[in-house]
């Protein structure tokens, strides 16, 4: 490859990366601005708005709500999604395809449709504006990620191992605990992380299901940015990016660890 082509190629790749990442990363300097409104580049660096974020009860309680909702939604979708993946493995043919499509539907159905449907169902049940209502809604969106991740892991589990364990006298629950779970651990971790990220990021369903009592961080950000343009929203965005990054690094570390033994 000639030098000119190489430079052109590298420049092109750099431009695409910049286009993808820079708008997101822009919130980091914006959050460090000392001025009272979002401006780039920041006039002077300061942690002032981080202080404001953590002193404001509404912001911290929304962060806490997000954490609670994400935890419940992740736990619930992990339980149901793993059960679904195990069940799908046991059935064959057309039913497996039909039911798989059913479990993956939340990925395909527009979020706004799901949101309105959930709103109609949740309202008479008194779930709107509650943490549990939000968590149930999020769990629905998280479910496909768990089903897919655990499903892929399960496909790599040799059924002979289950037979061997059974022949050695293990009960179905012991087999699940000592053979199935260790084998699908990467899928469980991956599914859980995708679920947590999905829940943390979710805004459409949350807007419908949130209330004064229970408001997730993205909803609070959305409300705030509409009335005031202070860098506090950028602080919240930076925290979200940080969390997402931590989750993804955890995921990578898990996948690397699970792959290493096979390579050796």
């Amino acid at each position: 490859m000639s030098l000119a082509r190489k430079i052109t190629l590298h420049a092109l790749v750099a431009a695409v990366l910049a286009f993808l990442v820079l708008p997101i990363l822009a919130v980091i300097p914006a959050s460090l601005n000392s001025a009272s409104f979002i401006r780039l580049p920041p006039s002077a660096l300061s942690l002032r708005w981080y202080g404001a974020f953590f002193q404001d009860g509404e912001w911290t309680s929304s962060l806490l709500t997000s954490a609670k909702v994400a935890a419940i939604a992740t736990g619930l979708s992990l339980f149901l999604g793993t059960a679904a993946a195990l069940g799908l493995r046991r059935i064959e043919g057309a039913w497996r395809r039909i039911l798989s499509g059913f479990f993956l539907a939340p990925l395909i159905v527009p979020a706004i449709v799901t949101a309105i449907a959930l709103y109609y169902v949740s309202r008479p049940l008194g779930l709107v504006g509650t943490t549990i209502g939000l968590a149930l809604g999020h769990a629905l969106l998280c479910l496909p990620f768990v089903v897919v991740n655990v499903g892929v892991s399960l496909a790599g589990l040799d059924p002979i191992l289950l037979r061997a364990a059974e022949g050695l006298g293990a009960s179905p629950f012991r087999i699940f605990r000592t053979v199935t779970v260790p084998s699908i651990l990467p899928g469980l971790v991956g599914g859980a992380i995708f679920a947590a990220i999905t829940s943390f990021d979710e805004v459409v369903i949350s807007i419908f299901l949130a209330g004064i009592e229970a408001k997730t961080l993205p909803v609070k950000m959305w409300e705030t940015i509409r009335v005031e343009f202070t860098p506090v929203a950028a602080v919240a965005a930076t925290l979200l990016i940080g969390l997402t990054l931590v989750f993804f690094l955890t995921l990578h570390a898990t996948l690397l660890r699970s792959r290493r033994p096979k390579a050796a």
Partner: protein
Amino acid sequence: MDRIAFKGVTKSFGPVTALRPINLDIAAGEFVTLLGPSGSGKSTLLNIAAGHLAPSSGQVLIGDRDVTALPARRRNIGMVFQSYALFPHLNVYENVAYGLRARRVAGKETARRVEEALSIVQLDGYGPRAVRELSGGQQQRVALARALVIEPDALLLDEPLGALDRQLRKHVQLEIRRLHQRLGRTMIYVTHDQEEALVMSDRIAIMRDGGIEQIGTAPELYRQPSNTFVAGFLGESNLIEGRIERILGGFAELATDELGISIRGVAGAGLATGAPAAALIRPEALTLSPEATPRLPARIEEVVYLGDILSIRLRLASRQDIWCRRFAGKSDLPSGTVTLGWSEQDVRILPIAPPGNPRPQSN
């Protein structure tokens, strides 16, 4: 240690019959090999014994217990798989201890028995090793130790040497045989390799198309095969087809139109005058000498040197090929056209096995 009995066991998968009614009694402490080509139903039968498959009809007995409806985990049977099926996330010790933990054996007792089992398969001190660090032969021995440590009533082995190279296979064959002689456990061994069957078994059951063609000791099967399939599957065989002329005094005479001679030999069971049959003459029973009777001319086509013996391919007037064996270096080999000779006692006249179905169908 217990006997295992199959009473009228059948298995169908939808319209496909995998096992025709199987009646098989395996004595306590006996080593029986199920030998047959792939698709003959031998693994299906083994999995029914282990409880991983339910028979469509019939009963499985272990000792005097009817275990037909008993789930695999309650049968107390050890199983060794071709792929070893070791738990990849557990080390050698935990793999062997698995069955004891499932039985809630106390920790001290577990440690003692695991170490004993590892020592039986000559893997002392391998406990802390990761399974993936071991060679194929070592993994196979861990699988064996894992199956033995639970003190099973019977040990089932499903082509356990299939993934090993030839040299190692021979070695492990002898090791398994010694283990059987030492522990005296009832063992069922599945293989398609006749050499494995011959080396290890007390009795061999030749399977084909979901049924047992014949069961007996290796010499019985070799010398008195019940039909041409068994004769062809165990050992090398020359089969000359013809029609039964006469059956008299334990001997039968076979007329061969193409060769123009009749061959006399020991009569097998199930022969009828006038029916098609075949004469079995093992390669080592043939002599190449001019004065032998009856006389059958043949042309030497090929001589294969196998070290201690020579394998000679001859062509008959009917264009059929015949193999003959003799010790190498015993005397000069004639060349060109020779006369084949044999003793009537070494010839068996057998019914012809019906052509096999590659996929057994429903009745």
